[in-house]
């Protein structure tokens, strides 16, 4: 007992002395921090600083070219009392949920089709990526011209074939403006889902499908019990990223409708832009995304939890 105790306690007792004598760089922890420091520095300068500045600004009356004064929660109460804020949150949620659903369905269909071997598959893979590759500005301006009631291709075509006599106002009618914006956005973004799912599909072992076929599983059952579980991680990551991107989308709404008509497509990013850049009230504008932060935070935590549970 005594020997055992001695054998164990001796190295423990020596540890502090050994650590203090070890050269600084040879300590694993120090080297680790040293290697991490560039990334931490970049994060500090490019993420933490602007982020904390925005939060601080939301408690001030900062406007362009003027000093900021602390105003407490005044900006938040100002924003909350505006009916436009409620409308913007509602529209942001509708835009995000519908667009994500459509992108998921189309992306999955694209991945399933492109995972099969057929003539021209490589061409089609590249072709379907075009909307994603196009700069957002170009893509949405194309849609704007396409849907324009006076000079747009779509209205010309529909009039020419006699389906309509007067042009349709896709972007300037409250009923069709939001669906039109969502359509344009989905068109541009679904290839990302498709490519990500395709990469995931190619990692599912073919033996699983063969075994399922031997057991008599049909296509739907294979999709439900092999494909979806096999893609689980990809789906979670893609959904998390895409939801954040879609919720924060600015270009589609700003370029297609500017938030109109009558705020029917106003999303929170456009509202913050109007307040901050157009009206130059940076403090008030910062309060808008700061209030959205908990919502997005909860969403990220929930999805991260799901991913961690699997691991």
């Amino acid at each position: 007992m005594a020997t055992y105790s001695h054998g164990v306690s001796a190295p423990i007792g020596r540890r502090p002395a050994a650590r203090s004598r070890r050269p600084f760089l040879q300590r694993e922890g120090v080297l680790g921090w040293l290697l991490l420091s560039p990334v931490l520095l970049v994060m500090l300068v490019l993420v933490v600083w602007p982020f904390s500045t925005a939060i601080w600004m939301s408690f001030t009356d900062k406007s362009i070219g003027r000093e900021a004064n602390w105003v407490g929660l005044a900006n938040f109460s100002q924003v909350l009392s505006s009916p436009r804020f409620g409308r913007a949150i509602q529209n942001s949620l509708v835009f995000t949920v519908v667009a994500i659903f459509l992108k998921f369905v189309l992306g999955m269909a694209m991945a399933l089709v492109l995972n099969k071997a057929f003539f021209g598959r490589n061409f089609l893979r590249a072709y379907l990526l075009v909307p994603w590759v196009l700069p957002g500005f170009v893509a949405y301006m194309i849609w704007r011209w396409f849907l324009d009631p006076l000079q747009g291709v779509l209205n010309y075509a529909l009039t020419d074939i006699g389906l309509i006599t007067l042009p349709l106002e896709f972007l300037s009618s409250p009923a069709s403006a939001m669906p039109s914006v969502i359509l344009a956005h989905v068109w541009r973004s679904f290839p990302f889902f498709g490519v990500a799912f395709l990469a995931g599909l190619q990692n599912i072992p073919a033996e699983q499908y063969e075994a399922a076929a031997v057991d008599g599983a049909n296509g739907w059952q294979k999709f439900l019990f092999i494909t979806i579980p096999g893609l689980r991680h990809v789906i979670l990551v893609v959904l998390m990223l895409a939801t954040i991107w879609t919720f924060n989308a600015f270009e589609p709404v700003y370029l297609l409708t500017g938030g109109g008509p009558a705020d029917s497509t106003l999303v929170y990013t456009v509202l913050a832009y109007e307040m901050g850049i157009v009206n130059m009230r940076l403090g008030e504008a910062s309060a808008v995304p700061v209030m959205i932060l908990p919502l997005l935070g909860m969403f990220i935590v929930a999805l991260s939890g799901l991913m961690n549970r699997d691991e």
Partner: protein
Amino acid sequence: MRHDDDAVVSRVARRLTRRRFVALLGVTAALPLAAACGQQASTPAPKPDAKPAEAAKPAATAAPAAPAAQAQPTVAKPAEAAKPAEAAKPVEAAKPAAQAPAAPVSGTMIFWMYKTRLDPFDKYRTERIQAWGKQSNVAVEIVEIGTSDYGKRIPAAIESKTMPDVLEAGDDWTQLLQPRGLIADLSAVYQQIDKDQKFAPGAKAVSTWPDGKQYIIPIGTSANLLIARDDVLKEAGLTPPPKTWTELFDHSAMAQKPPRIYGLGQALSNTSDGNLWVEVLQSYGVRFADDQGKKATFGNFPKEAAEVIQLVANGYAEKKVFPPGVLTWDQTGDNDAFQSGRTIFAFNPLSIPAWIRDNKPDMLPGVGTYLKPAGPKMHVQPVGAVAMSVKADSPFRDKANELITFLYDREYFKDYWPKSQWGPTTEAHYDNPAFSQSWLKVRVELAKTGKPAAWPDVQNQAWAEMNTAFVIPRMLQAVVSDNKKPEEVFQTAAEEIDKIYKKYEKA
């Protein structure tokens, strides 16, 4: 080999103590910050020996001045120049600078040029500025800024302290720049030009600040004017122009032939064009704020506002004079519609007929340009200007003044106006042959009779926010697209305007 490596690591590690490691991190952190600070000064600061007025400004020596302040000797406390009374400070400080012998200034003068849709005109102006640079031995970098980019570029430049040395922009930007002490007093330059060429009443109205000083020098007057397809109107047996807003809607309805051609190509969207309806409301007797521009009064005019709302709602739903898409038109929507021959009326600066002259000359004789129609209470025809201002702390202030004077050359303006889309700024320009053509005569009329922006209300920050928040276009959108009741939308708009004015009441 492994043993050798260990020895090297050990040697390095011995040299790198904790203190040195922390110091290394500190230096690494300081590098990007230093680089970022360096980037902020896009316009080069003058060298220590190039401070022309420092010695001539005794007050500056009394105050503990930071190095940056020393590099801006001609401006006294720009941030404090918020009130018009305080705006006198820059002028007082500027005098010694003007009297001091011109010191050599190194670096490049940044000139933000207002980009029009007329390339030959922009080229002509660019060449003139470059000619001055060559003659005066000053390197000038001309950056063309599109109309729609100003809203993003100027606020960003203010916050990053990278404002250009000379800025060409709409006169409305003075509202933002002057109270923040960001632009220099140009009264001396203004007086000099006025003595020689006499500024037109409209140009004088937009250039003169409430304190009686001038912080901008206009290079062209402009405004949204009524542009009409006279040929189409005459075909329908109508005599242009419509004298009142009601007549405008009637003429639109009578002459249009949808879907080929619509009557009124006027935005009802969230763009500055959509704010035309603010002027219509004023011409019907609505006042948005009291005489001081402090308290909102829009809510006191439900009857007058209802007339305008009804006029627009009827025009949209019954007479159907608006082309499809006006609810989400951007700034170019009315241009595109009129230029493609799809509308009879548009409200625009004369860039539309100028474009027609260059691209569809056959169409030009059928196009008329007029002052806006009147309302039952008054005629509201604001005039604006594209104008030059000089950065208050620019090391090129004196040179910039020279440049402005150089640009205000009578000979230069002889060729300037025929290429321009703007109207005259001085009485000396009235007789330019450019304004003798039928569609250009209205420019002289505008320069003579135009009222400052916001008139009869007061142009201030609250007014600006009411416009940039598009309260009035959104009010009209709610009626025509959401079918809301006029009283309801009026009440909402009144509350919103009230809230905006309250924010600025104490300022």
